[in-house]
């Protein structure tokens, strides 16, 4: 059949069909292999054929009523658009960049939120401590019974001491590690971050409540004259773990304030902007929780000496602080 017999839109299609099919092949190659691994000529052709296809689409919308053709061109150009303008990011150096630059920088940028996080926890602990000395009954109000494990105002000095200096640990190794990671505090950290979006209040309340429990728990041991011992028992992992909760709280607060006070931006834009730092805070908190679980699962069983516990706990804390303060500074 001669071309003259065809109507205009069919001729239009016939002239360009080969180019479209080549573009289709290139798009599939780009999607499966990635743009970086394509030949120079292929990548060049992909871009120029994509532009030709958009022109074809614009013309086809004007001159053709062939639904199949229009649908094909729509799908092809959209697919090619994604290849050309939204290619895969390079993955190399991702972890290195996170540890050496972005994480500590994000921590320094959100110092105010982190301070608020620590304040929530600290004030909670102080209130819990003072309230316990007012009346030990508060302890039962704050502390869920399954968490205290029999350590309540009725417990004896020996019972409390035996938990702190566990002479013959029965659960250790991987099982203990897993149990501790999924202990109360990790769940609190996840909740605190996730709920921060819902207007800050849940994050602040949860952190404060966690502080209350901590304060009451500490006060109980101080009353029995076990103050330094419990401080050691808590610090070996607690310095890292409680800081992680405060940092997760800061991440949640950052999202929550972005939602409450978006300023000149729309709420969604403001959330998006705050999300950049918040996600890094959450990752840092997750990392710290992992280290804390390791310290809690292994370290606390192995190290029974009170001074060693203090040194390890606060030493690790100092390492974190060093990373946050000095990491990722530009050389002047």
């Amino acid at each position: 059949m001669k071309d003259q017999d065809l109507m205009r839109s069919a001729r239009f299609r016939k002239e360009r069909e080969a180019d479209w099919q080549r573009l289709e092949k290139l798009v599939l190659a780009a999607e499966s292999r990635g743009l970086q691994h394509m030949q120079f000529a292929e990548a060049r052709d992909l871009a120029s054929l994509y532009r030709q296809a958009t022109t074809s689409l614009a013309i086809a919308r004007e001159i053709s009523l062939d639904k199949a053709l229009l649908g094909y061109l729509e799908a092809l150009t959209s697919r090619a658009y994604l290849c050309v303008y939204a290619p895969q990011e390079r993955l190399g150096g991702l972890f290195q960049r996170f540890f050496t630059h972005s994480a500590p920088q994000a921590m320094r940028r959100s110092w105010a939120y982190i301070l608020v996080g620590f304040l929530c926890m600290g004030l909670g602990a102080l209130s819990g401590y003072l309230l316990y000395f007012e009346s030990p009954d508060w302890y039962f109000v704050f502390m869920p019974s399954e968490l205290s494990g029999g350590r309540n105002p009725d417990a004896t000095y020996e019972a409390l001491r035996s938990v702190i200096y566990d002479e013959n640990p029965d659960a250790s190794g991987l099982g203990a590690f897993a149990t501790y990671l999924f202990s109360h505090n990790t769940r609190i950290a996840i909740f605190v971050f996730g709920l921060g979006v819902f207007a800050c209040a849940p994050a602040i309340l949860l952190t404060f409540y966690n502080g209350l429990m901590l304060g009451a728990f500490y006060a109980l041991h101080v009353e029995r004259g076990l103050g330094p011992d419990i401080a050691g028992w808590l610090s070996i992992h607690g310095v890292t773990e409680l800081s992680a909760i405060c940092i997760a709280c800061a991440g949640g607060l950052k999202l929550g304030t972005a939602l409450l006070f978006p300023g000149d931006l729309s709420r969604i834009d403001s959330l998006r902007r705050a999300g950049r730092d918040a996600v890094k805070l959450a990752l840092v908190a997750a990392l710290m929780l992992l280290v804390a679980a390791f310290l809690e699962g292994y370290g606390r069983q192995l190290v029974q000496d009170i001074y060693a516990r203090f040194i390890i706990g606060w030493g690790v804390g100092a390492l974190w602080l060093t990373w946050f303060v000095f990491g990722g500074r530009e050389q002047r």
Partner: protein
Amino acid sequence: MILRLRKKKKDTRPSPSELMPPEGVPLTLEVAGVGVRLGAQITDIVITVVALVCIMILLATLDVTSPQTIFAIGALLFFLIRVPYYVLAELVWNGQTLGKRLMKIKVVSHDGGPLTTHALVLRNMMKEAEVFLPGTLVLMLDVASPVASFAALGWILMCLFVPIFDRYRRRLGDMMAGTHVIHLPVPVLLKDLASEPRAFGENRKQFVFLSHQLDHYGAFELQTLESLLRAQNTRPTTDGGRQRDATIEAIVEKIRKKIGYADPVARSERLRFLQAFYKAQREHLEQRQLFGDRRENKHYAKNGEDA
């Protein structure tokens, strides 16, 4: 008609599926609905649970677990498998997990640019708060604590309603990361019906349509006819084609009546008549369109008077 026009103007925002590339030709990337995304999510959960079960069986045979800790280890492993799985899968496949590949959907950046690492990490971390925490809450619901149950219910409802009421069907994590999920368009080039060669001999009668006979229909009717003709070539019939014949006959008679085509069409000629009519009608409409007379459907004449 004036009323209808005014109603249309109320929503001046472009359709959520429309995307304007730098080339200036609007493209369509259809936003994926809640259902298909739920399907992809369930597929992903099944995949991760299968991986979890495999590892648990391996651990059990190696005898490193004890009955007291097996639940905690399982929870930990599930967490350690799924969190990197979603992030890494979307990083490696540029916005697609295995479930999303199966459902042919894809995460794209809201502004049409490349997907950044932080966006993918953020949207999948929020998935923990939006999907998995409410999910585990439901599994661990306790009759004794109605407050917790109501809180869980509220949380789940909120997480469900956010995408339902959003134009782009974004969850909270999507909003924060600046992404949304689309159907990946699949380009399939079908044959052009108008360029099919005339397989019939010269002695066969040619159908000829006059210009006024082609003024009755618009683009919508033409494209409906196109779908019908394409279906004739592909789909095999089960009842010996009787029902199909009846449909074709009804359509042919209707068209003949509408356009005033006097000659009767023999039974064997019906499909050929429709093909010829499609071709003539398309040529006519495309020509009118070139002259600026765009006919959306058969009511084009009425619309034209009003506007």
